[in-house]
């Protein structure tokens, strides 16, 4: 495992090393002294294994492809934003907009996530060990959002085709978001995600939420909802 000391080489130095590797590189890296800096390990494009020892700032792992990134600490705003593939895990909490617009891969937040978790998500799977803040899953397009704790206000507001699973309490559902039936297919997918994330929870304890699809085409009679 190669050690990258961010305190010595800075964010640019770390990212340059990680970007300059060939796309089939499978090297392991440990980033030390992240110091809450922003944009650490963003734009990776190879199946690297990257362990970040400490807290990170905004946009850690942004637009990740293929890489497996583990953050031992907490993460700032926009963790794994627009991730395409790969696997990002944070052992602590994540701030706002975790997994925003992400297209693919798996994002695991072992602690809590703040507001707008999974906003406009486009295919990523997100598993949160704790609770999520308000407006999570806002305009979420596809993929799965699993919340092992509670969800804040306006969950899934204006949601499209993302499936949201919640084990705890939901403070309130957003516009056009409704509770839906848990079919065997959904139990199976949820079990798979919980297993992949390494978080222990019984799928039977979860409820599923998704789109009522009433706002998919503009209708003046729905004006009160807009």
């Amino acid at each position: 495992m190669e050690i990258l000391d961010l305190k010595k080489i800075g964010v640019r130095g770390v990212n340059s090393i990680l970007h300059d590797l060939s796309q089939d590189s499978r090297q392991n890296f440990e980033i030390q002294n992240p110091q809450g800096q922003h944009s650490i390990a963003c734009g990776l494009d190879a199946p690297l294994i990257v362990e970040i020892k400490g807290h990170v700032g905004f946009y850690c792992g942004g637009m990740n492809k293929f890489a497996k990134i583990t953050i031992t600490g907490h993460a700032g705003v926009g963790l794994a934003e627009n991730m395409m593939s790969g696997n990002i895990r944070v052992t602590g909490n994540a701030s706002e907009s975790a997994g925003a617009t992400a297209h693919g891969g798996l994002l695991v937040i072992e602690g809590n996530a703040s507001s707008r978790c999974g906003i406009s998500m486009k295919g990523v799977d997100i598993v949160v060990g704790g609770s999520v803040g308000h407006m999570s899953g806002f305009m979420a397009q596809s993929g799965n959002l699993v919340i092992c704790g509670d969800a804040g206000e306006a969950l899934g507001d204006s949601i499209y085709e993302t499936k949201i699973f919640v084990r705890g309490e939901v403070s309130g559902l957003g516009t056009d978001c409704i509770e839906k039936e848990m079919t065997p297919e959904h139990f199976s997918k949820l079990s798979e995600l919980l297993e992949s994330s390494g978080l222990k929870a019984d799928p039977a304890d979860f409820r599923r939420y998704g789109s009522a699809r009433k706002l998919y085409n503009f209708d003046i009679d729905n004006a009160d909802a807009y």
Partner: protein
Amino acid sequence: MTKLTSQTHPRKSATFDDYTLSEIRRAAATGIYDIRGGGAKRPLPGLDDLLFLGASMSRYPLEGYRENCGTDVVLGTRFAKNPLRLKIPITIAGMSFGSLSAQAKEALGRGATIAGTSTTTGDGGMTPEERGQSEMLIYQYLPSRYGMNPDDLRKADAIEVVVGQGAKPGGGGMLLGLKISERVAEMRNLPQGIDQRSACRHPDWTGPDDLEIKISELREITDWEKPIFIKIGGARPYYDTALSVKAGADVIVIDGMQGGTAATQEVFIEHVGQPTLACIRPAVKALQELGMHRKVQLIVSGGIRNGADVAKALALGADAVSIGTAALVALGDNDPELEEEYQKLGTTAGAYDDWHEGRDPAGISTQDPELSKRLDPVLAGRRLANYLKVMTLEAQTIARSCGKSHVHNLEPEDLVALTVEAAAMAQVPLSGTDWIPGKNHD
């Protein structure tokens, strides 16, 4: 009631004019506001309200067709390793695949490339047709992030973070299901046929402090190679320009209310934002006060139509202009040759603006395969290149007449205004006076 005789003439209300009356009737009949494409149609103070003075006893002109008058511009010199080097100071504004056909996007790329300038993606991502035909392509980074991916980001020659646009500052967008073909739906990760809402706010940053961090992320992902533009609607040009500089922009695009959109509410287009003319000087002032004029380049857009507009925007302090609606017209939009078909759509050539409905007989603002096929991207691209060439020649003609060896040497002192409003907005004297409204007189 007065009986109509040959001595009287019926008087229509200026307040309730024909258009206003028709809008009231339309609203009463349908129960929904009007949605349309394009920019503001109402009369506004504009660049036509300015005149160049030309050379005289105190200014020495350059010889037309002989003495050189440069038109090149470099965009993104502040931080980017690879700034854009354009032959002309006119770029093609962002317009999405989805709102426009693939053929139209290809034609824009072809025309811009022939002319030596850049074109820009839009909401919905980058198409191979556009990338393949655009020597310089700017990739828009929009709130919806439809189609956004790091591979296309790296293929781009510059990145434009869209905060707003002139037609609807503070507004998002809606691409109606009528235009959501299988390909468009796939690029946007949404079901086919549903109305696709484009968000009005970015999902992972709020405010200029966050934007600064977001821009640093985009620079990290692209290894600091690409110029980063920030596009803002003409709302608060002084403060928005200053904050864009603070956020780390290489280039700022300011789009006035004459700037077009694929679709939004008529009331939004006509009543939110400021005219392009009113946006230029405050933006330039902000750059000058920060010592960033010409270091952070300023692009002005919104109703730019000809070389005179180009020259006037540059004289007021812009580094380049951008065109959208005019480029579509050059491709063939609203062509009188299609009048019969426009009539069938209940409109007329020159007024067609239901771009969101996807029934454009010119094959431009549509996803209908049969209509799209009508547009020959090679021929349309050539028409756009011709138009860009003419605009450039016109701007050069004016610059030479003012004694300038480069269009960027034009300055406010070359201009006067025809109206008090234009004089106040452009901060140039009212024609025939030395009075600039708002400036102290001794």
